[in-house]
Every structure is written in structure tokens, then in C-alpha cells.
């Protein structure tokens, strides 16, 4: 029953201001707690969310986060898709390197976030925007 209710969670959060980052982190935390995700996995997922959402705000001019509870076999997890219509990333390989940055951040965001989650996919088209998809299993 709980699983069924959780499976219905599917929502979009707008990221336009710094404050939206806080709201987004809190919402991910709420869902993770409800699911019964352990504290370490929760913290990793929220930190990854914060990194990617901030990148989207700074470099992509803001965007949308789609939050969804995913059930695959016996596994239950949280999937987040970050979509912006910003300038896009010219060199994704570079953007995924530790310490590479074109701006005022540390360059840990994308590669760091990737290490914190179970699945990570990034797709970007110059002039059209960037989409980052992450997934963290409850017991992953």
C-alpha cells in the first residue's frame, strides 16, 4: 500500500532562484524519508541534487526538476531529471572532469554528483539546453 502511494509521487519543481534550491533539497528529503531511505543515501542524493540544481541555475539560467519515485522489480528509488533551456555544455567530457569549471563554482558538481548516485545520464545540445538524469535506489 505504501509502495503504491509512493509510486504516485511524480512532480515538477521550478528552479529560478537560490531559494528554490533549498525548497528542492527539502522536497527530495521529504520523499526520501517517506520511502525509508537510509540517512547516508539520503544525504548523498540531496547533495547530488543540490550540485546539479545549482549548476542548472548558474549555467543554465534555471529550469525544471522532475521528481519521480521509480519501482524496478524489488527496488525502489528516486529519480530526478533536471532540464534547462540554457546555452548547453560545449564539451561534456570536460564538464565531467573533477575541477573543470567555466565559472565561479569549484568544478566538483557534475563529477561529484555522479559518484553519489546509482545512475547518472547527461545530455546537452548547444543553444538548446541540458538534461541531467539521476537515480538513487533506496538501498543502493
Amino acid at each position, binding site marked *: 500500500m505504501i509502495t503504491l502511494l509512493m509510486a504516485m509521487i511524480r512532480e515538477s519543481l521550478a528552479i529560478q532562484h537560490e531559494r528554490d534550491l*533549498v525548497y528542492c533539497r527539502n522536497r527530495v528529503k521529504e520523499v526520501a524519508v517517506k520511502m525509508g531511505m537510509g540517512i547516508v543515501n539520503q544525504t548523498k542524493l*540531496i*547533495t547530488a541534487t*543540490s*550540485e546539479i540544481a545549482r549548476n542548472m541555475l548558474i549555467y543554465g539560467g534555471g529550469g525544471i526538476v522532475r521528481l519521480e519515485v521509480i519501482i524496478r522489480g524489488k527496488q525502489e528509488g528516486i529519480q530526478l531529471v533536471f532540464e534547462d533551456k540554457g546555452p548547453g555544455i560545449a564539451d561534456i567530457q570536460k564538464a565531467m572532469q*573533477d575541477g573543470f569549471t567555466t565559472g565561479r563554482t*569549484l568544478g*566538483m558538481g557534475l563529477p561529484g554528483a555522479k559518484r553519489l548516485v546509482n545512475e547518472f545520464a547527461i545530455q546537452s545540445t548547444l543553444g538548446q539546453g541540458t538534461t541531467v538524469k539521476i537515480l538513487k535506489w533506496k538501498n543502493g
Partner: protein
Amino acid sequence: MEKIPILKMGKFLLVTIQVDLYDRLALTLEEDLIEMVYKTGSRGVLIDISALSIVDSFMGKIIGNIAGMSSIMDAETVVVGMQPAVAITLIELGLPLAGVHTALNVEKGMALLESRISSDPDDNAADGDD
């Protein structure tokens, strides 16, 4: 404007972060702290992050900045109360907070600051205690 309070305790400044840290607030704290170190001539800054459920690369950078700036101003920085899950996440994120002193709680942080300041004159001794 929202601000994080900075308390003066003897030779030290004490900051307890109790709210969700959004970026502007963190930057304001950084500026305020350095200003306070200058004004009060404090020798140490103690930052309690026990209420923070995450520290991401931006907050990590701010903590590093505070430690670096304080050190230039002849003050030591100690970060206390980091939750275990936050520590695990920071390392995997790739942010080891190099150059930042840490202690388990406020009491131990204070003791660390005291010891670093008292061992100040003989320069090599100061590096031996962490």
C-alpha cells in the same frame, strides 16, 4: 535581510548554523565573519554545522574560504559537529575540506582552538595536534 548570528566568546567567535544555508546567506556569513575577526581581533572561529543535513561543494568552498581568510588574519578556524552521513558524502563528492580543522563537538573544538593558540609561539608545535 536574514543573517546568521556570530557570537563573541572571549578570544573566539562562535557561529551555529541552524537554518538551511542558501548561497547568498553563506556568502554573507563569510563576509560578516571576516569583518568580525578584524574588528574584534579574535584568534579563533568555531563553526557548528551539526544542524546541517548536507554540505555541498558551494558550502564546502565557503567553509574553506572562511578558514583561509581567517588564517591570513591570524585566526584559526574549527568546524565542529559534522554529521557522519555528511562526512561520508563530502569525501565521495571529492571535497576533503583540506586545511580546515575539525572537531567532534563545540567543547572539543574550543579545546582545539585553545591548544592551537597557546602553542602559537613555537611554530612547529602548532601542526602536531591534528
